[in-house]
């Protein structure tokens, strides 16, 4: 598969490395030239030497998207640090370039939920964190099994 990742932060770069090591073709697009270095964290060879592609540009720029190969992409991941940018470019990838698999990372659970209902494939890390925290708290044992009210904590045991 040819995978285009827009937004090469911690998430984007990690996914990019993983996909490349699994033998996929991977192209990254980011406004910040420095983000290229993040791709090479933990690698003993350069990103391009391993067959990766990297383009400097914004996800909204048509020229940048074309240079990064959007027309041939089988999958598109929007993982910039802006929710609205991700939502907009995911729709561009879907509607204009008809990329078969489009995934948008959206931090705000409310926006993620609504766009998910509109048919967008969204990943909401905040939602995941909320769910994990809630269940972790529920699973936790109280300090003292014998204190029915929360106030007994100090004199417990």
């Amino acid at each position, binding site marked *: 598969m040819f995978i285009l990742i827009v937004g090469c932060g911690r998430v984007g770069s990690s996914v990019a490395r993983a996909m490349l090591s699994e033998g996929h073709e991977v192209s990254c697009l980011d406004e910040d030239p420095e983000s290229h270095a993040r791709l090479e964290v933990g690698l003993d060879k350069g990103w391009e030497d391993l067959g990766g592609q990297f383009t400097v540009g914004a996800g909204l720029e048509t020229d940048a998207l074309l240079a990064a190969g959007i027309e041939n992409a089988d999958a598109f991941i929007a993982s910039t640090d*802006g929710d609205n*940018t991700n939502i*907009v470019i995911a729709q*561009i990838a879907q509607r*204009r370039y008809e990329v078969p698999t489009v995934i948008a990372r959206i931090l*705000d659970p*409310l*926006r993620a939920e*609504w766009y998910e209902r509109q048919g967008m494939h969204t990943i909401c890390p905040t939602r995941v964190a909320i769910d994990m925290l809630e269940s972790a708290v529920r699973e936790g044992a109280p300090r003292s099994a014998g204190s029915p009210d929360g106030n007994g904590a100090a004199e417990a045991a």
Partner: protein
Amino acid sequence: MYIIVVGAGKVGWNLARELLDKKHEVTVIENNRRRYLTVEQELEHNVSYGDASELWVLERAGIQRADMVIAVTGDDEDNMLICQVAREKYEVERIIARVNNPRNKPHFDLLGIKPSVSATDLILRLLEHEVPDYGLVHLLDLQEEQLEIIEMLLGKDCAVTGRRVGDLKMPEGSLLISILRNGKGFVPGPDTVLEVGDEVLAVLDPGHEEQLKVLFGPGDGSNGNRSDDGG
């Protein structure tokens, strides 16, 4: 009407003032704290602090009952998202989006965000207006209504000056709606005689610009060269 304006920059603030003057109910949403405090001194309860791309901020501003949402922030993605959510989630009937970078205009169109207004485009059109041989300026495209309003400056070599409006063979689907002369605007009647220096506003169906350009352009054989025979 209840109108929500997103972004209290120069555009949003002045827009809010005008709308309030016209007795509309207005809420401006601004997400920069300092800017909010500045604007709040004048607009008081008509300005609300928050990031309007967060749905609860829109809901707190009463988007469910809004008749219109105008997104004029400096960020095109924000304007697109806010308008999309306003129309598709909250079923706001009228939206207007500001385009900051004209290259993003196709994205607004792709997401169905209409009308969208670009200051750069407007200024470009004014520039075109200053170029003598470009006689026709787009003032407004009402795409859904299939109407355009254009402005023409009648130059010295214009074929129709000195003629009565009633004698003009206007293309079908077009209408002269206003004449600006010596800084004053009026609605022309059939007996109004066009003069050099008039700025003429016409409303027309899209696609008729060329015919109007010919009619109001420099005189040639077919139209009579600066003829004074009309009227």
